[in-house]
């Protein structure tokens, strides 16, 4: 069966510090990978998605970047965090085929102080 791991679960970082959130998927190959951000009590905003190694599409211009160094690894990064980067970050994957549901990790609660 497939599993998705996302870490850390919570993170408190000062403004201006770097960020690295990691997500890995097991039990499948060539998945589509996604990073979403969720503000408190709100819906999800798609940040980045990837359909293959080294292929990253950005949906929202911002202070963040994403990389996919391996088939089942997706990393969200920032060189210098802003207060507005605080939120709940969710990694997800789908099969690389039409009409597949998203499978989410448990999320990372990021607080920038």
């Amino acid at each position, binding site marked *: 069966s497939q599993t998705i791991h*996302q870490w850390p679960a919570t993170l408190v970082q000062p403004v201006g510090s770097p960020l690295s959130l990691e997500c890995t998927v097991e039990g499948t190959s060539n998945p*589509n990978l*996604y990073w*979403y951000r969720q503000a408190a*009590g*709100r*819906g*999800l905003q*798609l940040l980045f*998605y990837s*359909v293959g190694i080294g292929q990253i*599409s950005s949906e929202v211009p911002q202070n963040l970047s994403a990389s996919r160094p391996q088939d089942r690894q997706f990393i969200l990064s920032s060189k210098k965090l802003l207060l507005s980067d605080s939120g*709940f970050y*969710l990694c*997800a994957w*789908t099969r690389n*085929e*039409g*009409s*597949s*549901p*998203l*499978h*989410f*990790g*448990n*999320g990372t*609660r990021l607080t920038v102080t």
Partner: protein
Amino acid sequence: SQQGEEDPQALSIQEGENATMNCSYKTSINNLQWYRQNSGRGLVHLILIRSNEREKHSGRLRVTLDTSKKSSSLLITASRAADTASYFCATDDLGDAGNMLTFGGGTRLMVKP
């Protein structure tokens, strides 16, 4: 921008009652999906309904889709306290690549024991 908008934003019912949540969207879709999110956790896929389907059932869940009105509803019958969560609709928009879903703002459901 958000594609789907859920209504109501919050719903409080007694255990045993039925809960109905509605979702409206703006563009043509391949399919519409419903997800559940417990507080502080990732989203869990509940059900997917394709654009050529009108109704779908899964256990105590019933989903309808009206593409002429660009709307969908999620009915949870005989609700339980454990159904307390936020529920999101998400659309797979026609023409989008990479299985990108656009999420609504969600309905917060509270089921009182």
